[in-house]
């Protein structure tokens, strides 16, 4: 990179424009450095122009150039004190590297904060969704258990009631049978009373009178037994008549309970489906949040390539510095030049063993190549 000096070479006849441009740029360099270049015989000078006869002027120019037998590639200093340029570039490099380092530190700090926020957002979302899922699962499980317990209790109660009614029916049948036996006993007692009356009439006197009393009492007793048994029979009959109705009601209750249990099972299934849908929706939202977080992380990566590219500016400046020093005959060693960089930016190893022309990326950003 011959930015700061010009090499005087023998120009071909068609290089007049180049020669003129070089001379003008050299003058411009003098002005920008603020130092006047001492006139030198070795400096290029524009031949006087003959505007009326360009062909003649060109020939004269060529002769002038031919007479300047300057050795090829001779370096022409562009300032009186080369170390000023050297120091200016050193300072400039330090300044630029300092700015790059500051930019790196600030942007890295901010990006770490943003990354931390992204992480917190994802964690918060994950925690919230997990918590919601657990709460709903727990609530659903609790309600299902309570409902099942209540229905089982109701079923057991109705079944117990049904069994009690069946037992009552059975007992009432037994009582009816006992009532029939009592009826027979009452009939026998009435027959005995009749026999006693006949015997009392046959015996007569005091003996007959005693039999008469017994006969009368037995008759009275048999009537009372019959009356009482009849009342019991009526009651049992009323109970027996009511039991089928109770039994029917109990059966209806069991049927209703079974229907209700079927409805509850369907409800439970629907709630389970809703819960599953809700959980799936939660997972979908979490995946979306994760996807957005990943996208945010991808965008945050701009900082690293940006800083690395900025750091490459120093590689260019270092090359420039070396070439400048060569041009100005300053014998800084490469380590001394490198030292300008140290303390500001980390020194990366150059990949100087790259194949010629192997400077372009063969992969697109984000592309993953597995060997």
């Amino acid at each position, binding site marked *: 990179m011959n930015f700061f000096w010009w090499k005087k070479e023998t120009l071909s006849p068609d290089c007049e424009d180049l020669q003129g441009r070089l001379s003008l740029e050299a003058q411009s360099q003098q002005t920008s450095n603020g130092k006047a270049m001492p006139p030198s015989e070795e400096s290029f000078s524009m031949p006087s122009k003959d505007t009326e006869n360009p062909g003649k002027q060109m020939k004269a120019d060529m002769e002038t150039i031919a007479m300047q037998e300057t050795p090829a590639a001779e370096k022409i200093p562009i300032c009186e004190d080369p170390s000023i340029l050297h120091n200016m570039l050193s300072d400039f490099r330090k300044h630029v590297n300092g700015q790059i380092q500051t930019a790196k530190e600030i*942007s*890295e700090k901010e*990006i*770490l904060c943003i*990354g*931390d926020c*992204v*992480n917190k957002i*994802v964690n918060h979302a994950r925690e919230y969704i997990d918590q919601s899922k657990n709460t709903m699962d727990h609530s659903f499980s609790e309600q299902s258990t309570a409902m099942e317990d209540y229905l089982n209790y109701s079923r057991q109660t109705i079944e117990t009631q049904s069994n009690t009614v069946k037992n009552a029916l059975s007992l009432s049948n037994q009582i009816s049978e006992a009532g029939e036996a009592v009826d027979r006993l009452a009939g026998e007692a009435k027959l005995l009373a009749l026999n006693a009356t006949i015997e009392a009439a046959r015996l007569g006197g005091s003996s007959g009178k005693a039999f008469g009393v017994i006969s009368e009492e037995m008759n009275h007793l048999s009537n009372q037994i019959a009356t009482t048994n009849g009342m019991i029979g009526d009651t049992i009959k009323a109970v027996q008549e009511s039991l089928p109705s109770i039994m029917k009601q109990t059966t209806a209750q069991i049927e209703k309970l079974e229907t209700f249990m079927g409805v509850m099972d369907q409800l439970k299934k629907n709630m389970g489906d809703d819960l599953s849908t809700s959980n799936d929706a939660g997972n979908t939202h979490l995946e979306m949040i*994760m*996807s957005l*977080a*990943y*996208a945010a*992380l*991808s*965008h*945050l*990566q*701009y*900082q*690293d*390539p940006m*800083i*690395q*590219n900025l750091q490459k500016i120093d590689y260019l400046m270092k090359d420039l510095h070396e070439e400048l020093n060569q041009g100005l005959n300053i014998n800084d060693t490469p380590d001394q030049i490198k030292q300008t960089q140290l303390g500001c930016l*980390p*020194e*990366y*190893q150059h*990949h100087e*063993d*790259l*194949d010629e022309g*192997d*400077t*372009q*990326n*063969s*992969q*697109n*950003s*984000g*592309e*993953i*190549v*597995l*060997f």
Partner: protein
Amino acid sequence: MGKQILVVDDSAAIRQQVGLALAQAGFEIIEAADGNEGVSAVDQHPSIAMVISDVNMPNMNGLEMVSAIKKKPANKALPILMLTTEGQPSLIKQAKAAGAVGWIVKPFNAGQLVATVQKLTA
């Protein structure tokens, strides 16, 4: 406890971004800031399941680190994935020769990186 992934990069931001992406997928992250720290971390944590490393780093670069890690027979099967801004074929060739399993040019897609790590550590 998830599988341990070593992330080697001199950029704290990149370490964080790779770490966040992998941590969300259930991996445990160990960080190193250059090749020297990377080699030490592999020695200290034999349970590391995979290494993701930058190439351009101070002290010891990523390619040197791969060679140093792969020198040890115990690390022959340890997958090392290069994650870098560089993409020159010569460098990729060197990484492959040193024993790396793959190459990603930054910026990376976090989802794809996670999928690749899951595949390589399965």
